[in-house]
């Protein structure tokens, strides 16, 4: 009997270790849950996105919070977040926790399509609205989800611009190498780019992927040296993209255009110096490509939130660097959620979803509008720009070079001009 | 003939460990196998028990060709053995060790039967009081007896004993000899490798002598002991060997 007692008391201790779920209480704040890649290979981009979100939170709370009509008051915003270590391992577990234990009312996605795809499943399973920022893969929106809304221009439109740009600048360029990271996002981008390239008459001479966390690109560089493509497009995220750009430079590959995902759009990319020069990249948003109230008026759309100047100024002051598109995306996710809650007039998921469905507006980040068809929740309003790292007074600067009409500088071509 | 070894050869690379050896064993006979170190005795046992297949020659057991029959099947047919360097199942209890013999050997007992058989056999070899001890804690003589018990529990027709007497003091060795004789009386055929010369001479019905893998002599203990080839093989000096053989209790 005594033995039984010991066993059961050990058991009780064990169950206590689970902790307890929080009970319901009167709403005094809006809790937004998400994970951040504070560590790991995605930390550069994720950090920026998080900074953007933090800035939005400060902005909203300074105005007393988000106005919720059916409660007749403004509710301040509170963040609950964990570090996902840039790894999918624990993302689902953490989102379950955010929803059930931390009582998150709304969710924002982690950074990257891979992590978002995992967390989206949890958001769906528990019926929580999730704003997906830093997640461009189209695939996420073909799964029959009804709670996920995308802020970024989807992956299928990422690198098509690079091909248009190449064709416009040098009609003779024909051979393209597509080398991309084995991630949801890069794969989606690359597959779309390949189709587009073939449709536009390019020859895709290399179409290969590299593993996450690859640090040695020599095998691919050898292949490039052998096949002699005119352009290299691809990449994945920051860490690998930066290394790839650096190694292309080290081997002095004679290519005419290098267009990589994500990495060049992050301000930190400048740290590789000359290797960064003339690299181009698609970008969701650039400080030099401004959307204003007058743009909104011209397109007949409502304007919401802060101005680009305000955002750039505040962000630079707070974090000591010019914001890149990840930061803007983070801020925009907050804005969109805020607008949707205000439009819905309550915190109920179904009402907020209705508001998101009907949304079509202009922000400093660009236009926001969601797909209501087969790719429910996918971003259809927002457009991308292209940037290139150029030298201005011996300082590396990002310039917008595409699309026509939005350029802040002309494309410098070919890439190997710098050798 | 319960066991018939015909012209068996086993090579390891260039080394011929067993070289065209033939012999026969009658039921309920004790066959002693002697020879200097490295003569191929243990290899011969390994070939008979199926650890190795011979390159040449055939082995018949109860008239059946078992040359290519795998080891475990030979055990089930009724060939059991002990090892020169004991191979106890260390983390199991003594009883469990013997049960494995009973369950998987010719006896093919169920676990329950196996336990009963193992208990009896352990009593017979004088290890009954240690049945629940973890084997690793036994001393060497006890482990030797355990190996014997394990082989016996499998209900063999032929049992191969590889130096069961080595490392035992004279009293223990005598006890062991009594056990071996008892085994013979119960109708089991015994092949034994032994260095303890007086013991094997006393107990064997027939002896074969191996040297460099070849059988150099065969016959009754007396015939073998007086065969000069044997004595030469042993020491190169016939006189010395003879003296040693005659002086009881010395090991060679």
């Amino acid at each position: 009997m005594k033995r039984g007692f010991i066993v059961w008391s050990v058991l009780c201790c064990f169950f206590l270790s689970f902790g307890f779920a929080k009970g319901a209480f009167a709403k005094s704040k809006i809790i937004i849950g998400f994970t951040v890649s504070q560590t790991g290979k995605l930390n550069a981009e994720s950090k920026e996105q998080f900074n953007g979100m933090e800035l939005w939170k400060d902005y909203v709370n300074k105005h007393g919070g988000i106005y919720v009509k059916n409660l007749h008051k403004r509710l301040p915003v509170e963040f609950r977040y964990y570090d996902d270590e840039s790894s999918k391992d624990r993302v689902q577990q953490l989102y379950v926790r955010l929803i059930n234990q931390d009582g998150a009312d709304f969710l924002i996605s982690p950074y990257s399509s891979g992590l978002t795809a995992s967390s989206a499943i949890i958001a769906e399973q528990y019926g929580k609205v999730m704003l997906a920022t830093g997640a461009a893969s189209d695939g996420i929106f073909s799964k029959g989800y009804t709670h996920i809304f995308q802020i970024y221009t989807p992956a299928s439109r990422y690198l098509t611009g690079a091909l248009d740009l190449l064709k416009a600048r040098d009609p003779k360029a024909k051979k393209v190498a597509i080398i991309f990271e084995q991630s949801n996002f890069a794969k989606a981008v690359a597959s779309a780019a390949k189709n587009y390239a073939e449709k536009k008459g390019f020859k895709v001479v290399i179409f290969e992927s590299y593993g996450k966390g690859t640090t040695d690109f020599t095998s691919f560089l050898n292949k490039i040296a052998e096949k002699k493509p005119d352009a290299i497009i691809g990449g994945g995220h920051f860490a690998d993209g930066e290394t790839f750009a650096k190694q292309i430079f080290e081997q002095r590959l004679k290519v005419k255009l290098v267009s990589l995902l994500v990495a060049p759009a992050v301000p930190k990319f400048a740290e590789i110096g000359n290797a960064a020069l003339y690299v181009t990249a698609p970008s969701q948003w650039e400080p030099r490509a401004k959307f204003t109230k007058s743009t909104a008026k011209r397109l007949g759309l409502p304007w919401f939130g802060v101005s680009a100047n305000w955002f750039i100024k505040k962000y630079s002051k707070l974090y000591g660097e010019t914001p890149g598109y990840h930061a803007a995306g983070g801020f925009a996710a907050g804005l969109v959620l805020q607008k949707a809650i205000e439009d819905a007039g309550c915190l109920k998921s179904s009402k907020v979803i209705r508001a998101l469905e009907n949304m079509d507006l202009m922000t400093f980040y660009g236009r926001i509008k969601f797909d209501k068809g087969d790719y429910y929740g996918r971003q259809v309003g927002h457009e991308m720009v292209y940037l290139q790292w150029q030298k201005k007074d011996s300082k590396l600067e990002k310039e917008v070079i595409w699309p026509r009409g939005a350029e802040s500088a002309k494309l410098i071509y070919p890439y190997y001009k710098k050798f | 003939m319960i066991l018939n070894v015909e012209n068996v050869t086993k090579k390891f690379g260039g080394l011929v460990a067993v070289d065209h050896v033939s012999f026969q064993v009658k039921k309920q006979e004790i066959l002693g196998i002697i020879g200097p170190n490295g003569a191929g005795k243990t290899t011969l046992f390994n070939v008979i028990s199926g650890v190795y297949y011979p390159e040449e020659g055939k082995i018949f057991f109860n008239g059946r060709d078992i040359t290519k029959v795998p080891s475990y099947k030979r055990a089930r047919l009724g060939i059991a053995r002990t090892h020169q360097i004991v191979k106890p199942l260390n983390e199991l209890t003594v009883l469990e060790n013997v049960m494995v013999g009973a369950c998987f050997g010719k006896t093919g007992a169920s676990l329950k039967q196996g336990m009963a058989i193992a208990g009896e056999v352990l009593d017979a070899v004088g290890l009954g009081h240690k049945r629940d001890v973890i084997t690793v804690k036994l001393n060497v003589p006890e482990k030797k007896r355990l190996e014997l018990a394990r082989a016996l529990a499998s209900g063999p027709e032929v049992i191969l004993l590889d130096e069961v007497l080595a490392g035992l003091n004279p009293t223990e060795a005598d006890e062991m000899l009594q056990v071996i004789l008892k085994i013979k009386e119960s109708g089991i055929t015994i092949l034994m490798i032994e260095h303890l010369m007086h013991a094997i001479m006393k107990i064997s019905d027939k002896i074969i002598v191996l040297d460099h893998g070849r059988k150099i002599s065969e016959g009754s203990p007396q015939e073998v002991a007086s065969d000069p080839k044997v004595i030469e093989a042993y020491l190169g000096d016939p006189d010395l060997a003879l003296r040693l053989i005659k002086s009881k209790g010395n090991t060679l």
Partner: protein
Amino acid sequence: MEAWIGAILSGILLGLVYGLAAMGLNLIWGVINVINLSHGAFIALGMFSAYFLFHFAGLNPFIAVALVLIIGLIIGMGAYFVALHRVLDAPELSTLLSTYSLSLIIIGLGTFIFTTNPRAIDIGLGSIGVAGIYIPISKILTGLFSVLFTVILYLFLYKTWTGKAIRAVSMNKSAAEFMGVNSIFILSLSFGIGIALAMIAGCLIAAIFPFTILSGSVYELKSFVICVLGGLGSPLGALIGGLILGLLENVFALKIPVGYIPFIEFMILVIILLVKPTGLITKR
């Protein structure tokens, strides 16, 4: 043609580094008969040593490597007494797990202290080029240093008394003891040298590729393949194994999708183990 020459060159340079990385594993496997599952963790530790020596002491990895050698030797010998000495005669599971637990401790502490953020050492040596084939100078230096350490190790093992004692212990521990060799010292020294080699490899790799605290595992897995390819016990075998792998990744990959390379590598590992499981292990 240029592409092929370039690929062969970079394959050789990479192969030399792989060979050096595998040498430590090879030595420990050969001498102590322990498969050191903390190999990758020590490679990562070598990378971080290089990183900190570079950023805080201003030493570039090719100079820091001497310090790393000494650090590695001390840590390795210490680790032997902490984690291995007690279980050397236990079943192989014990040594596998005790070295693995070392790896967990190192990587765990490393993650705690350094996080898993990627890092890089840029010593800015630039590239050198002939006839359109450009190779980063740091890569060339890394290759040369790998050769240098192989030669040193070879001379040590074959020309010095201690080295001969190590080889004696690897062949027959009790016979060596009988000859007056202090086998405990030799075993710990061998482990120390093995760890030092792993850390040196890490230090050199850090000069050419970016890394995180988790990067070691990639090189550890490659080292297994190399050890099995090149046979155990000789530094030369590891170097040859490394070269095979380096050329496979660079030259072979010109003609097949790069994605299949790891598959080929691990199939080589499994197949060699199946075909010559004892041959490769009992070579010593």
